[in-house]
């Protein structure tokens, strides 16, 4: 929570943004953690008429239905499946990891891929598959786990990689028609890839953008910077999170990623296949690649449940409350799409924090 000085600064920023807003602007918070934070801090109603839209930065949400089915199939195939808790309730086309777990599958919640490595070390006779969902932020830890597994001869440890890289998704987003006036760029991902890797957002697409942190003041600082650039008509990519993000990013993490993964086309919910946007294990780690070593279902899977508009939410085309299923047929315990269940999902954030209209009297 904010200290006294930070609170005063945040209040000042809020007032200055409110004063400056030239009509209805649309700014996208690319990162799911931003979506959740903005809702949790109660910022949306305070910033009206600014329209804050979510983007493709929730890793669980952009995971394609076919990948979810393959991960669920791994759980049904006698593997120990280790995963972040987020994935548990995400619906595949027929079932979820949670349902498989109730039916006897061995699904274990971990907070780090290195914990999955420990499980593999303690269960040498059983295959342990870590479900790799994430962006540049989580990918280095998974790279490290795979490298360690190889070094330690943990031949029963596998990664199922749905890891993705954010920059190609930004290209896909901005090259297509959109109604956006500015972007808040993800702070954690930027700490790995660096600010300058995202210069193209302004130079190629003329879109003002700021790399933003996750506190109240950080977010307001980022929004203020973007609003100022819009107002002045001078798009740039500003680093509003300099205490964490460097120009060139985290070179060690980048090296680790380059040593472990190749880049390949990947399927994104809401976007379809985006070229050169996914991390796949390099051939020297093939022995730990679950996608190569397990017989998994192939074939096309419909992107979404009928009427689910997660794809539109992830492209910033609508906000969650504009989906007809929201808070009616689609609920956190019985989600029809991943955005309602992931802790970074926009629908989950709106359901938890923004669903009820009207502000309680002071």
């Amino acid at each position: 929570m904010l200290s006294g000085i930070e609170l005063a600064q945040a209040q000042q920023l809020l007032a200055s943004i409110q004063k400056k807003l030239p009509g209805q602007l649309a700014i996208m918070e690319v990162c799911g953690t931003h979506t959740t934070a903005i809702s949790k801090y109660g910022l949306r109603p305070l910033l009206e008429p600014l329209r804050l839209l979510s983007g493709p930065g929730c890793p669980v949400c952009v995971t394609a239905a076919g990948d979810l089915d393959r991960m669920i199939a791994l759980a049904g195939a006698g593997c120990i499946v280790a995963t972040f808790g987020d994935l548990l309730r995400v619906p595949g086309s027929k079932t979820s990891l949670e349902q498989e777990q109730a039916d006897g599958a061995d699904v274990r919640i971990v907070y780090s891929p290195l914990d999955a490595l420990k499980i593999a070390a303690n269960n040498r006779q059983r295959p342990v598959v870590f479900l790799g969902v994430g962006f540049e932020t989580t990918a280095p830890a998974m790279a490290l786990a795979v490298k360690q597994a190889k070094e330690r001869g943990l031949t029963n440890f596998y990664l199922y990689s749905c890891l993705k890289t954010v920059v190609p998704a930004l290209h896909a987003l901005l090259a297509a028609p959109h109604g956006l006036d500015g972007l808040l760029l993800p702070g954690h991902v930027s700490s790995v890839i660096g600010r300058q890797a995202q210069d193209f957002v302004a130079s190629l697409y003329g879109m003002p953008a700021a790399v933003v942190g996750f506190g109240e003041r950080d977010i307001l600082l980022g929004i203020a910077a973007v609003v100022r650039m819009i107002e002045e008509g001078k798009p740039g990519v500003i680093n509003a999170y300099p205490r964490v993000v460097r120009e060139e990013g985290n070179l060690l993490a980048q090296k680790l990623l380059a040593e472990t993964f190749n880049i390949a086309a990947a399927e994104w919910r809401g976007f379809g296949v985006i070229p050169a946007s996914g991390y796949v294990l390099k051939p020297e780690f093939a022995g730990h690649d679950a996608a190569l070593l397990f017989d998994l279902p192939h074939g096309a899977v419909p992107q979404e449940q009928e009427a689910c508009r997660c794809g539109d939410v992830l492209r910033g085309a609508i906000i969650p409350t504009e989906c007809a299923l929201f808070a009616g047929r689609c609920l956190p315990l019985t989600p029809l799409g991943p955005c309602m269940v992931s802790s970074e999902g926009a629908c989950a954030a709106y359901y938890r924090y923004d669903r009820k209209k009207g502000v309680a009297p002071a």
Partner: protein
Amino acid sequence: MKRVLLAHGDGGLYAAALIKDLFLRHFRHAELGRLSDAALLSPVDGRLAVTTDSFVVQPPFFPGGDIGKLSVCGTVNDLLAGGAQPLYLAVSFILEEGLLLDELEAVVVSLADTARSCGVEVVAGDTKVVPRGQADKLYITTTGIGRADERLLLGAEHVRPGDAVILSGTAGDHGIAVLSCRTGVSFQTQVVSDCAPLNGLIYAISPYFSSLRWLRDPTRGGVGATLNELAERAVLDIVLEEKSLPVRPEVRAAAELLGLDPLYLPNEGKMILVAKQEAAAEVCLALREHPLGREAEIIGHLERGTGSVWLRTVLGGTRGVEMPAGLPLPRIC
């Protein structure tokens, strides 16, 4: 290292030795010493309150407590929240074959010490042993008996718009303490569980009993779930003030790291009190006089509404506080 054997649960010589050499050495009530099938207790003045709770926390030893201490705190605090003065406990153990006897003794000592420290007597007990793998070390069920305190008239039906919501201390300590030593969570923290029996604290504010309308210890689901239950039952809205909610910085940091909200983390030594508006400030000050209530705060109030909980953020925004939907935090108590 001596271990629990299946024979310790067979009712024969081993079982008798376990009772005599371990349990009776630490639980000293005369009724237990008679080794009869039921404890006979003197009549109490007033209505009886009974509650029961099972404890399966994993791991059984955690920073700031263990399953023995927890099994006293949980039941004693439930009696208090029900408006009763805790008097007696019955304790039932389910032991896994192979449990170290030293570990069992440590739990029994902790349970006995905690009960003694809060003036509650263990008057009945039972032990069963199950084969290895059919339990995780040990589970404890405690049943508490108390005397209803007629000065406390508590319940969601007594709560009124304008009443204040008081939290007796920081939120989320127990949850983070237990998570910090759970396999699979690789982070270190200095946070210790708040696990404590609260009868000393609650009876320290007995002059204000007539101003209290509702008590509840926010265990599983934390402050968020507990207040949602109240709001729904009372069909009133509850508005919390983020700036008043006491949370330790270490708990906030750890919760952030794990993607959890301290509002939903369990507590084992905290009480939520709903008090009449005019008495709330005094109740809060009285709580702070007691060591277990030093960080008590008025965290919000009730108002007319439809049964929702709201949080006014530090920046003045208002957001909903929903009932938590299935957090992956099993076996926290």
